[in-house]
């Protein structure tokens, strides 16, 4: 079932000295229960596409539909809170909150009571394969892999069924890359999430159900 439909989307912005066309009439779609990999060179527009899918900004032209509804007309804060979660290459954890508090954050935003939020957060941390000792650690005390897994645990805790991951293994070693890949596949295939993965890693991309390749802001699709 098609969860996300991208229709003729263009996105441009003004850099310091010039206008940058990051996306040029991109059209694609994303179904539930599948893992999508978007690959391409740096500056090809793949992370921009991911941010637009997360509703962090709106396309300059074209439309993004979420379950058939124009994202531009939706409450994008609620969309991110309830449906879409984003995992970033640089993790973007709150530095002054512990791992547990970081994972609890989206639950508390939804109004889940403290004790319940804590229980669910601990479940998510366990799903991400993190040891219990990490619960009280601050991000700066963790390795990159651990931080990324906390970020994924936070995304899982949000309980949205759209998971958007931007270079989730970019800063990780091979072992951690495998763990993260496994987690993303699990989300897609077992939980039925729509998982969109932006990556440079062909190894990781090969694990995806569908691969999109981007070049100069344009998109091509390669079904496996």
């Amino acid at each position, binding site marked *: 079932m098609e969860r996300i439909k991208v229709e003729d989307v263009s996105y441009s912005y003004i850099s310091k000295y010039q206008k940058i066309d990051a996306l040029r009439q991109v059209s694609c779609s994303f179904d539930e229960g599948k893992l999508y990999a978007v690959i391409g060179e740096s500056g090809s527009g793949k992370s921009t596409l991911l941010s637009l899918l997360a509703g962090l*900004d709106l396309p300059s032209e074209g439309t993004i539909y979420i379950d058939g509804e124009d994202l531009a007309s939706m409450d994008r*804060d609620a969309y991110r809170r309830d449906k879409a979660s984003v995992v970033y290459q640089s993790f973007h954890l709150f530095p002054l*909150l512990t791992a547990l508090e970081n994972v609890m954050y989206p639950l508390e935003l939804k109004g889940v009571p403290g004790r319940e939020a804590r229980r669910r957060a601990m479940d998510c941390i366990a799903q991400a394969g993190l040891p219990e000792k990490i619960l009280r650690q601050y991000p700066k005390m963790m390795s990159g892999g651990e931080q990324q897994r906390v970020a994924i645990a936070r995304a899982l805790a949000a309980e949205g069924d759209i998971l958007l991951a931007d270079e989730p293994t970019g800063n990780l070693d091979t072992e951690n890359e495998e763990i993260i890949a496994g987690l993303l596949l699990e989300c897609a295939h077992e939980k039925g999430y729509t998982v969109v993965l932006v990556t440079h890693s062909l190894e990781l991309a090969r694990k995806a159900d569908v691969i999109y390749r981007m070049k100069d802001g344009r998109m091509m699709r390669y079904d496996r």
Partner: protein
Amino acid sequence: MIVRNSLRQMRRTPLRTAVFFFLILAATAMLAVGINLWNINRESIRELEQGFTTIGTVEQRRETSSYEAVWDAREKDYTYRAQQDYGRWVSTEELDFEGADYIIKPERKVFFGAYMEDSVLYNVQPDYDTDYYLESTNQQITVEAVPYETGVAAPIKVKVARLLEGNENLFLGDLWVCDHYNPDPPVLEAGKRYIMCIYSSPDRHGTDNDADLAGEYQISHITCDQYTPEGEKVEGSFEELSVDEVTEGFYETERGQQWLNILDENYIAVNTIPVQPVSSLDLLLGFYTDNASVQKGREITEEEFASGEDVCLVSDLFARMNGLEVGDELRLPLIYAAYTSPAQSYLPSGGGGAPPGRLINAQGELYDAFDEDTYKIVGIYTQKIRQDGARDALGFNEVIVPERSVEGDWSDHIVSAAPMSASNTTFQIPNGSIRSYMEKFRTLGLDQLEIRFYDDGYTDLEEGIENRRITSGVLLAGGSLMTVLVLALFGHLYISRQERRTAIERSLGLTKKGCAVSLLSGMLLLTAAGVLAGGCAGALLTEAAAGQTEAGSFHDIMFSSGALETEEEAGAEAQEMTKKSQPAAGGAAAAAAVFVLASAITGGFMRRNLKREPLALLENYDE
């Protein structure tokens, strides 16, 4: 949840949080002290301004000197007397120049003479009695005299046929009379009776050892004294009285009546008292310098001055002589107005003074009352110095009334006129404006005028006042600047540098409002605690600071010509002043101001953060 997380994150940066708290506390305290000192200074400056008055006097100097030829009967030749002239009289209007910021414009003070027929007037002679004086003086005598031989009155021996006024003991026999300064003295015929007013003078023929001539008296030339308000002498039908032959029915003639008026005028003159109309007691030097002060009752109020109430102040001497008390009424028939010497120089005979002019007008008539009202005595004043001629003395019998209470027109009752002098022209300017006034005055080129100021030491204090004003201003400005800088710095640290946190929160679905609450709540709660503590500290510090400031002012006053006060009194004043300034209110105001400022500054930073889309805040533009 959001607030809790905000506070949690602040708690985990304890050093930064503590520094922010103490800086906000210090800034608020400084601001509170600045506000309170500013208020205290404003209050003390206001009180100082009320306590001081700057008045100026104007004196027109004589410009030219000339010699007047005066006939001397003894020398049978003219003698020359130096005489100084004012030239053109400068009018008060000429002092109304641009930039002269008068509180009270220069005005030539007039004083009035009230004929008090039934009152007892105080005099330097304790047993003073008007009738006795008139009978015993040898200063001025009016007689009918008969010459023994026909001859010119320069001198001539006469027999006193009738004493009309004066010391009768002196006139049992003959005497010599002389029209001493007249180059063309009258010829008096033997056997005829002449009326003349004579007086004893050192300018006479013979010596004290010359028994025959020792008693020589000189013949007066009596003129009228009536002037226009502009100071010009009024010419009328009255012709100078010197010597007139007394024939049958003489006193029924116009000339004879004028002689009778002169006799009455002498009596009236010694029974008049000076009445000084003023618009403020400060304009009377006696009250300004505290030589005179109200001992019983009260001063005339500003409202009474403004409305021209019929109220008055009388001297304790006059009140005592006449059994007057506060609340009694006094009828004042005003018969003449004078612009020359001040009221204080006019003392009834025996005190060395007299009315500043003859009390007969240009028609030879006695002046009648131009204004007559009953005044209520509201205060009885006393004075420390009573020397005749003392700059700030008041007349023994001087009555002070509101200027506006005199409604009668005295323009036909002016017996003396003079240009502006220190005794008749005063004005008031704002405290501390003497220098700027004089700078502008000098550009007028009125070099014949001398301006003298009395400010009771205000100028000496002015620098101290200005220093205090600057100190409190610096504290206020410093506190404000420090507050802004602290808030800007920490606004930057807590908000601008937390863009990433905002972006993460937004990417997790927190609304813009939620993001604002998340970032601002902790900071504003900390600010609230800081300003409360700072406000309290500021209020406490104010009391100490105010005490120091007032102690300084005590020393300032000690060396000024203002009123002296003891250190205890200064301390008590400081406490009173501090109470009036309400340090707690100042602390609260500072706290409120800092909190509002903090809200505004942090709100501004926050708005800038929220303007940017999370995409821009996070990354990815550089793909």
